[in-house]
């Protein structure tokens, strides 16, 4: 099994770290993973995206032109990656700030109002974990427990008290995500 993700949004939304947690969780489960960011000034306010591949076999190309799943968190990302989802693949988007919703019929489209909920519930810092929860609900490529383990592994010790909040966010995302 190989699952190829593209995660994309504004810089500062935590797209790269969401990808990192996903990749680490894969690593925890003994899978082969790659995390390939579009790096550079985009990290600071422009569009940031990262390709994450989780596979049972060694990963060949870390750079892809089409994806099994696109997770898009803003309009430019949706415009860029909707067409790059493989037929039969998945598109998950946050509806906040989306004026032109996805139109493809040959893929499964899911929507998660993570930004709205995060803003309401003072959860902006864990916004990306809400999104990741939604992603894992649709494609449980790694377990929730592995994600929490990955957080323990990647977060500095002083932030470990935030892990329960991240867990909440992940579960909230799982509830929030829906077709459309």
């Amino acid at each position, binding site marked *: 099994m190989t699952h190829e993700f593209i995660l994309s949004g504004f810089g500062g939304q935590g797209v790269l770290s969401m990808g990192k947690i996903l990749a680490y969780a894969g*690593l925890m489960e003994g899978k082969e993973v790659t995390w390939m*960011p579009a*790096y550079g000034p985009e990290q600071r306010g422009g569009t940031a995206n990262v390709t994450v591949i989780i596979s049972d076999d060694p*990963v*060949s*190309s*870390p*750079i892809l032109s089409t994806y099994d799943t696109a997770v898009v968190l803003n309009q430019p990302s949706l415009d860029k990656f909707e067409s790059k989802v493989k037929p039969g693949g998945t598109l998950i988007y946050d509806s906040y700030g989306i004026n032109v919703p996805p139109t493809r019929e040959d893929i499964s489209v899911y929507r998660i109002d993570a930004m709205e909920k995060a803003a309401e519930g003072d959860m902006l810092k864990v916004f990306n974990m809400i999104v990741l929860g939604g992603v894992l609900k649709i494609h449980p490529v790694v377990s929730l427990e592995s994600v929490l383990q990955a957080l323990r592994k990647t977060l500095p010790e002083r932030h470990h008290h935030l892990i329960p909040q991240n867990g909440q966010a992940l579960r909230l995302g799982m509830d929030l995500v829906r077709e459309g």
Partner: protein
Amino acid sequence: MKGNEAIAHAAIRTGCDGYFGYPITPQSEILETLAAEKPWETTGMVVLQAESETASINMVYGGAASGKRVMTSSSSPGISLMQEGISYMAGAELPALIVNVSRGGPGLGTIQPSQADYFQTVKGGGHGDYRLITLAPASVQEMADFVDLAFTLAFRYRNPAMILSDGAIGQMMEKVVLPEYRPRRTEEEIAAGCPWATTGRKGLRSPNIITSLGLRSEEMEAINLRLQAKYREIERKEVRYEEYLTSDAEYLIVAFGSAARISKKVTSLAREAGIKAGLLRPITLWPFPSERIASLCGQVKGILSLEINAGQMVEDIRLAAGGRIPVRWYGRLGGIIPEPEEVLEELKKIAAL
């Protein structure tokens, strides 16, 4: 772990004595990781941010001339600045590691990945007749593994070695098994292993002089002939490459570094499309696997060189092929990484020849 971080950790773990560098995207994580790890408190490794790449490479010259295992890293524009020092080190026969996490040029160019420094690395870059042992990692694991390999080769032949990577491998995160911890060499081990090193005249031995100067033509020719003999030996003994699905291949892709990763995918796509493709991945760019390519020319009907540049390695492949079969290049420029599907289209064109 990112490729850049893997380099830093591998250096600490395999007994590196010193790192001297200057920040430049996309490789600053190497210096940042070293600074955060504080190896001077554990292994005793020196880490110094220099005032320029010129100073960095000359610090490496000084450290190497004193028998220490020292390295620097940079990206393309910084590596250009280092060419003077690299040429001097080749001339003075100093072992050291230079890492180039390359980006697109010419000039300030882009910070996105590129393989456009192939010529600079394997054909010279600096002045004079010299060669640089060049390793091209294609994974984060190889970023870690090649640090020790590069040092080993550098010291075996008293010659600078380069890891020629690119922004994609440097920034990418993958699973990596770091090398076992090994202590730095003791003063006695350095004296025994590098009797030529300038460490002070212990026991009042005759002085060691490190220089690349030979003002008299006869003297300088002799130095050059000795260097050339060394280069021929390296070419005989140290060629490294990886083959993938070549045993029954009718078409061959040759690619290194991140382009080789893409090519592996292309090979699979090609086989699904009914083209028997195989991949040869040079691990040493110099010495180049010319002989293996020449022998594969008796088997395959055409070669595609996939490079993230305007076609540089393709010249070496053509030299190896000697005009017997078509050799074509495909690549993208300016920091754009070719996608597997567009490479497949190029392979199809060769198959249709």
